[in-house]
């Protein structure tokens, strides 16, 4: 009897493995249902383990308080400088975007979730978080932490969702080397350092190069921070993600699918209509006006406020002036 039960269960296991290979959607849906049912229990078990983890981290930090404080001071100085630079660049960037009528970035909604389970075993690198379809989490959304991309949502239940980490065997993220613009794919292999593959052959990669999402394929929006190149050995580029998975407690799940704001229509120039190009008579007369009075702002007084449109008329006027003389 025992032997028969064993054989039957063995066959059932093999059957499940094969079914998972043939119809992974079905198996993942079943998995999501079970995880959903277990979510409250997982949450309950995660709490004390989390406290232990925090306790260990606290004891650990007691031993290097001084060094850590020193390092933080230095980092703070550096970040202050960066913050002012970033603020200036943000203003500048906004102005350029406005000038060029760039299609605005997709609006993002997000929900912050707590990790209630991780894989623990050697087969996969994924986490379960405590928010699901009820909270607007859907498969394909992006998991972020303060320091960069964590992974993407693989499947959701009603109150739980499973995130595939960047380091998982099945994780493929289209990325680019920042600055260089060379594109590649970040391939996880269950190790802590995923591999950067499919880079163009001419690109030289150095340790420390920054890796961000490229946005190719539409799964990830472009420019999200991923990590830095750790080492290049025998043509294999390894990337160290900026996210510190070992201390990760919360993940922000971001929905980038929301439609971006519509492209703004170019504003019609305000002020007097521009002089027609093929009427030299009108051109010279306007040149005479600005040349004689010398007070262009007074001449088109109401247009003076609009610098974009107001600056335009004197410019063509300045050219014909020497020709007239």
């Amino acid at each position, binding site marked *: 009897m*025992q032997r028969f*039960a*064993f054989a039957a*269960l*063995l066959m*059932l*296991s*093999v*059957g*499940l*493995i094969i*079914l*998972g*290979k043939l119809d992974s959607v079905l*198996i993942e849906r*079943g*998995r999501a249902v*079970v*995880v959903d049912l*277990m979510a409250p*229990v*997982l949450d309950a*078990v*995660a709490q004390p*383990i*989390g406290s232990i*983890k925090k306790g260990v981290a606290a004891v650990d930090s007691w031993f290097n308080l001084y060094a850590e404080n020193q390092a933080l001071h230095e980092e703070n100085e550096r970040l202050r400088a960066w913050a002012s630079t970033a603020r200036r660049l943000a203003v500048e960037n906004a102005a350029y975007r406005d000038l060029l009528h760039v299609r605005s970035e997709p609006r993002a909604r997000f929900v912050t979730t707590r*990790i*209630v*389970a*991780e*894989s*623990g*075993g*050697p*087969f*996969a*690198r*994924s*986490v*379960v978080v405590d928010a699901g379809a009820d909270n607007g989490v859907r498969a394909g959304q992006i998991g972020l932490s303060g320091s960069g991309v964590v992974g993407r949502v693989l499947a959701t239940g009603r109150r739980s969702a*499973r995130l595939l*980490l960047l*380091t998982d*065997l099945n994780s493929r993220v289209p990325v680019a080397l920042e600055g260089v613009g060379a594109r590649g794919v970040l391939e996880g*292999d*269950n*190790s*802590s350092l995923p591999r950067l593959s499919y880079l163009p052959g001419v690109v030289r990669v150095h340790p420390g190069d920054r890796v961000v999402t490229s946005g190719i394929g539409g799964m990830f929006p472009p420019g999200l921070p991923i990590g830095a190149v750790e080492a290049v050995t025998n043509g294999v580029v390894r990337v160290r993600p900026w996210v*510190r*998975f*070992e*201390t*990760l*407690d919360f993940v922000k799940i971001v929905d980038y699918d929301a439609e971006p704001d519509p492209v703004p229509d170019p504003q019609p120039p305000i002020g007097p209509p521009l002089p027609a190009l093929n009427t030299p008579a009108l051109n010279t007369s306007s040149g005479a006006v600005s040349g004689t009075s010398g007070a262009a702002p007074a001449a088109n007084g109401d247009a003076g406020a609009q610098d974009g449109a107001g600056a335009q008329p004197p410019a063509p006027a300045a050219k014909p002036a020497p020709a007239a003389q």
Partner: protein
Amino acid sequence: MTESWPRRLLANLVLLVPPLVGLLCVLVGVAPSGISAIDAAGPALTLMLVYFWTIFQPALLPPPAVFIIGLLQDTLSGAPIGLGTLILLGVQQFVAHERRVFTARTFTIAWLGFGMVAVLATAAGWLLGSIHAGLLLEVRPFLGQVLLSVTLYPVVSWLFGQIVRGLKSLEAFR
């Protein structure tokens, strides 16, 4: 007659204890400890459970219980479903078959036995996982899991031993 049904209930509750401990092992195993972040994996608690109970109280951990524990572990951990189940069932069958070898007088031999089973089970897991994925899996997490499991086995088996002792005293009480 009035005494018999509480006794029977107690006997049935005793039957439930090892599977419930197995459930707890699964939950602790997938609790977010951050271990997956480094090139490692948590200790194979369920493997220890199956090894321990198959030696000491095989009747309390029948194959269906092992199957359910393995299935739950695969489901929650994100591993290919059925893979861990297959390995745990294999371990149970192997240990049951060679039970006389593993039922050692000294703890050191039991520990060595576990080390051997852990290495075999992990190698089988790596092989099956690689076949399933269609490529050679990263070895380091598997090595990490074996080392951690063998290191922690004395502590975990002591805890299991306390539970078995408790169950035995319950039986004596009956």
